[in-house]
């Protein structure tokens, strides 16, 4: 039986180098996830803003990076408590009347009962020593959670930087929000 020797392909050094370079470029494009939680706080109701702030503070307390991007109804949760009517035109003003600002005034998405529901919830929270969303927001600030308002929704709803609570980062847009989520090991839309 004749054995035929396999032909060894002759690969030039230049070709090899080219391949290595291509692999390195590919690796650079790969997304490296950070030990980070990124939340899009879209909902402004009490039963949304509460878990949002609990998760963000817990992540920060666990040594994770955490950021919360406030958009749409979520923005009303970070309006300063004293600020009542915001906006420049009747539509924006009406919106602010229908969505009283600050986490303290957040409504329940179910069983609101003209404010009785949230009052009951907060009574229960007091009894069980659960921190309220407004307390959790300031706690989040202390723990280094990055709180970021959405520029576009601020414009849409007529909310100005001075209408919002202190300790927020500069408003950002959707692309930056996506970038926040892209490198976060966990990203949530609440």
């Amino acid at each position, binding site marked *: 039986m004749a054995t035929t020797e396999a032909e060894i392909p002759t690969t030039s050094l230049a070709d090899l180098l080219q391949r290595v370079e291509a692999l390195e470029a590919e690796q650079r494009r790969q997304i490296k996830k950070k030990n980070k939680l990124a939340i899009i706080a879209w909902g402004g109701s009490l039963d949304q803003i509460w878990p949002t702030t*609990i998760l963000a503070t*817990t992540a920060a*307390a*666990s040594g994770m990076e955490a950021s919360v991007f406030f958009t749409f109804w979520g923005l009303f949760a970070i309006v300063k408590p004293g600020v009542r009517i915001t906006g420049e035109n009747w539509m924006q003003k009406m919106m602010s009347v229908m969505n009283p600002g600050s986490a303290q005034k957040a409504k329940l998405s179910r069983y609101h009962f003209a404010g009785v529901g949230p009052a009951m919830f907060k009574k229960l929270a007091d009894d*069980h020593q659960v*921190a309220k969303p407004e307390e959790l927001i300031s706690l989040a600030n202390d*723990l280094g959670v990055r709180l970021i308002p959405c520029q576009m929704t601020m414009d849409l709803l007529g909310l100005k930087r001075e209408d919002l609570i202190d300790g927020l980062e500069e408003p950002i847009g959707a692309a930056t929000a996506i970038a926040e989520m892209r490198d976060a090991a966990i990203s949530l839309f609440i």
Partner: protein
Amino acid sequence: MDVITHTVDAKGQSCPGPLVALARALKDAQTGDLFELLATDPGSRSDVPSWADLSGNELLDAETLDDGSFRYVIRKVA
């Protein structure tokens, strides 16, 4: 030195109270320091080990005391 030098009393507090209290106490401590966390939140039984896992700190002991409350011993690593 295996002496507990910090006690965090989070009795009565609910999630995430005990963890936040613990994390805050840890911030100003030295690596290697031993902490004792006291809690009554039943959720802490799963949350404290998870927190240790997430944060990279070491949970040395977890026990239920006679009064039904919980005691955790943690070493600051991270």
